[in-house]
C-alpha cells in the first residue's frame, strides 16, 4: 500500500506528511507481560487480517505479537499488564496485542508504551480485541512515549452479543501520537464504552480518530474523550458514530471536550454521525476553548492564585476520566503526571 497523505480523509489534520519512513529500521521493542500466565498463547479465531493502511500492513509484516486468550467462563482477578519499551534511536517497532475473551469471561488488560525523551523512534502498535458473548473486557492504554517518538496506532475491537467492552486511553507522551479506534458492537445488546485523557505540551500533537460502529440491533456505545493542550501543542479529535441499517433500537453518545491552556496551543474537534435507520437515540457534544472565566474567578475570589486555580480546574476536568479508569489504582500516579505537566507550562 502507498504512504498516506493528508489529502486522504482519514489522515486529515495529521502530520503524516512529515514522516520519513526510511529513516527508521524495523526492530523489536522490549515487551514484558505481568499477570498473563495461563492466558498467553495462540488465538485461532480473532480476525487480525484487517488491513486499512500501510501501517497495518507493516505491522503484519514485522510484528511481535502478544496473544492473550481467556477461556470461556473465566474471571481473571488481577489486571494483565503488557509493557512495551523502546530503548534505541532510529528504530520502528510494531507491537501487536491480540485479545480473545471467551464467553461470559471477565478480564482487565493494561498496555503501556514507553520510550526515553531522547529516543527518536516510530511505534506502530495494533490492538485486535474480541469480546465474546456476555464477556466483560476492560482495556487501558497508557502512552508515555518520549517527546521525540512517533506513534501511529490502530485499535480494532469487536463486541459480541451482550458483551461489555471498555476501551480507555491516557496519552501524555509522544511527538506526534495518533490512535485510531474502531469499536464495533456486533451482537445484539452489546455495549462499548470509550474514554480518554490526553494532554499535550511543548510541540506535541495528539491525534485521535474513533468510530462507534453499530452493526446489530439494540447495541449501545458511549464515548468521553477529554483533552488539553498547552504551550504550542496541538490536538485533534475526529469521531464518527455509525448506526447501520440493522442496528435498530441502538443508543450512542459521544462527548469530546478540549481545554486550550496557552495562546499558542490549538485543538480541533470534529464529530460526525452516520445513521442509516430510524428508532435510534444518538447525541454528540464537542467543545474547544480556554478555562471558563467564571470558574477561574470563583476560585480566585476565594484567595487562590491564578496558577493554582487553573490547576484545580484542569485536574477537576480530567478527574471525570481518571475516576473511570479500569484500573483505579493507576489514577493517582497518572494524575500526578498531569499535574507535573501543568506545572511546567511555559509562561
Amino acid at each position, binding site marked *: 500500500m502507498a504512504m498516506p497523505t493528508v489529502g486522504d480523509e482519514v489522515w486529515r489534520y495529521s502530520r503524516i506528511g512529515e514522516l520519513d519512513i526510511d529513516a527508521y529500521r524495523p526492530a523489536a521493542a522490549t515487551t514484558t507481560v505481568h499477570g498473563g500466565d495461563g492466558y498467553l498463547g495462540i488465538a485461532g479465531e480473532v480476525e487480525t487480517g484487517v488491513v486499512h493502511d500501510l501501517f497495518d500492513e507493516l505491522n503484519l509484516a514485522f510484528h511481535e505479537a502478544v496473544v492473550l486468550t481467556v477461556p470461556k467462563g473465566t474471571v481473571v482477578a488481577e489486571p494483565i499488564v503488557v509493557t512495551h519499551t523502546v530503548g534505541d534511536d532510529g528504530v520502528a517497532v510494531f507491537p501487536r496485542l491480540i485479545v480473545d475473551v471467551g464467553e461470559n469471561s471477565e478480564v482487565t488488560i493494561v498496555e503501556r508504551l514507553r520510550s526515553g525523551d531522547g529516543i527518536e523512534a516510530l511505534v506502530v502498535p495494533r490492538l485486535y480485541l474480541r469480546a465474546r458473548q456476555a464477556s466483560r473486557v476492560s482495556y487501558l492504554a497508557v502512552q508515555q512515549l518520549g517527546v521525540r517518538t512517533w506513534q501511529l496506532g490502530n485499535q480494532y475491537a469487536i463486541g459480541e452479543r451482550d458483551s461489555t467492552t471498555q476501551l480507555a486511553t491516557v496519552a501524555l507522551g509522544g511527538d506526534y501520537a495518533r490512535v485510531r479506534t474502531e469499536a464495533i458492537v456486533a451482537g445484539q445488546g452489546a455495549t462499548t464504552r470509550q474514554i480518554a485523557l490526553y494532554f499535550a505540551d511543548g510541540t506535541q500533537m495528539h491525534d485521535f480518530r474513533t468510530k462507534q460502529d453499530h452493526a446489530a440491533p439494540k447495541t449501545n456505545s458511549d464515548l468521553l474523550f477529554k483533552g488539553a493542550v498547552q504551550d504550542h501543542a496541538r490536538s485533534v479529535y475526529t469521531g464518527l458514530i455509525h448506526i447501520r441499517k440493522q442496528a435498530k433500537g441502538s443508543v450512542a453518545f459521544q462527548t469530546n471536550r478540549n481545554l486550550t491552556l496557552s495562546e499558542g496551543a490549538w485543538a480541533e474537534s470534529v464529530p460526525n454521525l452516520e445513521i442509516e435507520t430510524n428508532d435510534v437515540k444518538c447525541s454528540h457534544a464537542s467543545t474547544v476553548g480556554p478555562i*471558563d*472565566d*467564571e*470558574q477561574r*474567578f*470563583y*476560585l*480566585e*475570589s*476565594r*484567595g*487562590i*492564585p*491564578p496558577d*493554582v*486555580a487553573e490547576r*484545580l*480546574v484542569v*485536574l*477537576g*476536568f*480530567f*478527574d*471525570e476520566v481518571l475516576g473511570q479508569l479500569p484500573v483505579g489504582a493507576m489514577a493517582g500516579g497518572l494524575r500526578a503526571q498531569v499535574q507535573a505537566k501543568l506545572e511546567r507550562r511555559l509562561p
Partner: protein
Amino acid sequence: MSTLEIRNLSAAVGGKQILNGIDLTVSSGEVHVVMGPNGAGKSTLSAVVMGKPGYEVLEGTVTLDGVDVLALPAWQRAQAGLHLVMQYPTEVPGVLLAAVLVQALVARGASTDGLDARLATESTRIGFDAGLLHRALNVDLSGGEKKRNETLQLAVLEPKIAILDELDSGLDIDALRDCARRVEDATNETGLGVLAITHYNRLLAELRPDRVHILVKGRIVASGGPELADVLERDGYAAFSGDEPEPEVPPRGGSLEDLFRLP
C-alpha cells in the same frame, strides 16, 4: 478593626456606565444593606469591589484599611480580607469544596490543621449536608445548598469584610435563616463587617442592619437606619427613583440643622 471605604466609585460594563459615584463605608462588626430595584447596579457594585474581570472603573477609590483594593487582582483582594458570597455560585466540575478550602487557606499562609473538624462543626451550624464537602463545587446542588455552601466558606475563611450579593435569592426561608444567622454570628464572633446587597427586605428579618442604603440608577439616593427599609416596604422604590425628592426619614430628635432648615 477593619474598614472598607468606597469613595465616589463609578464603573462601566461593556462601555455602559452603571455606577455613578458610590460612597459607602463599612467597618468591622457593622451590617450595611444596599437595597435597590433590578438594574440599579447592585451586582455591578459587588463585582467591581471584588475585582471580577470585565468591569471598568471610571472614577473613585476602594480601600481596605488604607490598602488600594482596586490595584489588586481578585485573589489578592480575597487574601487582604474581602469575601464575595455570590448570587449564582459557579459550578466547578471535578473540583471538591474541601480541596478549594485547603488551597484557599494554604495560599493565605493559614494552617489547615483541624480543617475537617472545623468543616464538620460549620456544616452542622449552617445545616449544610457534610456529604457534599467532598463533592464537586456547586455541581447539582439546590439553590439552598449552594448558599449554605457559600456561607460555610465564609465561616471557614474568616474574612474581614463580606459582600453578600443577593444571599436571599434562590433559597427557601429555612436556608435563608441558617445562612443569615451564621453571618450575623460572625459579626459578633470575628468582627465581620457586612455589605449585603439585596432586592427584598426578607433578608432583614434575620440579618439586622445598622445602616440601609437605597441604590437607584447607580447612585445611593438615601441612607438611614433600619427604619428606611420600612419606608421602602410601604412606598416602594418608586419613591426613590427619578428626580423625586428624597424620602422623609423619621426624625431622630431635634438637631441644630433641623431647627434652622428652610421650609
